[in-house]
């Protein structure tokens, strides 16, 4: 079973196994290449010895023998190194959290907690909208009150105006003057009637 080492991949940007494979293949290629260079050099040297019985096939057999041996050790040593690298270098210990995931440590919200938070935000938004429209209604009433108060004050000013007219014409208390006026007119009517009777 392959452990995908996903968390390590999230950090390194490549899977550790791929990295190891890349190193393995590169190392192996170098081993083969240098072996081929060795064989080429030896063959070239042999050509400079005329009459030498050592044939290319023989050298190839020697190369294969040495390479087989090296490859066997190479694989053993490499798998040891790979094991150590995957354990010590290309690994993120269990207790370690990557910086981009810090938020999960600070806010380990469950689905329900998250939903509750969103519900609370929606509730606050509703409440705010309600308050805002209430505020508008209140301010609208304040404007309306200004108009109404102005109207009522105007009416009061009418009354004040009336009283000022009375005061200007000597009648401080309207009621009394009205009574006085009524009495006076009654008297005048009486006098008028007397005059009329006498004149008859």
């Amino acid at each position, binding site marked *: 079973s392959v452990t995908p080492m996903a968390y390590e991949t999230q950090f390194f940007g490549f899977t550790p196994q791929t990295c190891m494979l890349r190193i393995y293949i590169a190392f192996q290629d170098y081993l083969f290449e240098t072996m081929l260079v060795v064989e080429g050099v030896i063959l070239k040297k042999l050509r400079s010895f005329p009459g030498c019985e050592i044939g290319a096939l023989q050298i190839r057999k020697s190369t294969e023998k040495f390479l087989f041996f090296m490859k066997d050790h190479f694989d053993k040593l490499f798998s040891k190194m790979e094991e150590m690298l995957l354990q010590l270098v290309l690994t993120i210990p269990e207790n370690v959290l990557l910086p981009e995931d810090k*938020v999960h440590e600070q806010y380990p919200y469950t689905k329900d907690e998250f939903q509750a938070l969103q519900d609370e935000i929606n509730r*606050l938004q509703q409440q705010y909208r309600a308050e805002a429209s209430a505020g508008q209604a209140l301010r609208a009433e304040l404007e309306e009150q200004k108009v109404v108060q102005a109207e009522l004050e105007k009416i009061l000013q009418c009354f004040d105006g009336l009283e000022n007219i009375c005061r200007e014409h000597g009648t401080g208390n309207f009621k009394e003057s009205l009574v006085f006026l009524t009495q006076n007119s009654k008297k005048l009517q009486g006098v008028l009637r007397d005059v009329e009777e006498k004149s008859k």
Partner: protein
Amino acid sequence: GRAQVLATLVDTFLEKLVAAGSYQRFANCYRCFYRLQPEMTRSIYDQFISQLQASIKEEIQEIKNEGNLEMLFHSLDKIVEEAKNRQEPAWRPSGIPEEDVRSAIVPYLLKHRSYLQKILKEKEEENRKVAQSVLEGRNKIAELQQLIQARKHAWQ
């Protein structure tokens, strides 16, 4: 640090590989050539080993450059160092993206929530004041109406 461990592991690997592929072993495999030219065999072997070591070290350097490994190793060492007081296993992706992204949004939702709480409080405070003036205004209007009623009755 990790970079050091990598270098040590590669050096060890090379040491052991060279130890396994010793000159004796090499000479033994190329016995026919060795008998003919022992010094030449030695120098070819030495070149073989130094070439192999150089190529492998070069490859490691190339991979480190390519993957920016020095920097990554250094920062991972720091991250691990910072977490050394934690024993319990840390969070890991759940494999359900919408769940994992949730926590990433939470801090901003919390900020949003406290912002809403703040402006709601301000708005409520503001409305309380306006409501107060509305009530005062209503009382004032009631007073004016009473006053007008009284004046009107008086006239009547």
